[in-house]
């Protein structure tokens, strides 16, 4: 499979996430669209790791090139899990204070 297909798939997923962030007002949906963008980037990283592995295989049949990229994706997932827990706690606190998750009410970050 050419790498271009994966690039365009990841670009399309990322842009759908961007459109979601720009057009929705619900803070939770915006947060979900950010997760979608993160996943698009992860998919592209793995596709590039397999591309790099294939081109390294031509030189050395025993190569392990490309393993690091998959570990980077693993670390991105670790950081995303931590980020989601803190972000959702912030959204819950915000909802408790102003009884809404509408981002238009939050443009001054005070109430």
């Amino acid at each position: 499979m050419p790498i271009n297909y994966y690039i365009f798939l990841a670009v399309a997923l990322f842009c759908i996430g961007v459109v979601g962030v720009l057009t929705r007002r619900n803070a939770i949906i915006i947060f979900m669209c950010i997760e979608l963008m993160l996943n698009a980037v992860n998919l592209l990283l793995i596709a590039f790791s397999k591309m790099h592995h294939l081109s390294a295989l031509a030189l050395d049949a025993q190569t392990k090139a490309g393993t690091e990229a998959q570990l980077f994706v693993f670390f991105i997932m670790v950081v995303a899990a931590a980020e989601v827990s803190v972000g959702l706690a912030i959204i819950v606190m915000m909802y408790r204070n102003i009884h809404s998750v509408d981002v238009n009410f939050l443009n001054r970050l005070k109430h």
Partner: protein
Amino acid sequence: MSITAVLFFFLSALALGSALMVIFSKNPVHSVLWLIATFFAISGHYILLNAQFLAIVNLIVYAGAIMVLFLFVIMLMNLNADTEPQKNKWLKMAGAVAGGCLLLVLVGALRDTEIRTHAVQMKDGNIGLIHNLGMVLFKEYVIPFEISSVLFLSAMVGAVVIGKKGD
């Protein structure tokens, strides 16, 4: 057309369609369910690329833990379709046009790069197996791995402190 290509296009269509449904659903619970479908499709892509460990981690961490957390928060707040405020029509249109322009620029820039001749190794290659990843993770990347445990501890403390009632 090989079975790999058929699977690739099927999973891509599934991922894009579910991602579009995430941003077009009025009900936040439906959005979460469509996002879970998107994550399953992306996990299918990982399996197609023979990155088996990351496929399972993606399912467990994203489709399992994170999405259950989202569902839990949405049900805690009792959100549904008619409570969500809508942006006005022109702002929505401006957002869609801005996102479409970003897509257009990226596709136009990447359309004719020399990378087009490179291929991705599908369905074989052993770098995505847990044995190889574990060997590298616990030999060369053991310090970042341990630091990520500190990150988790601080995230847990932060979530508890922020979510605590009263102050």
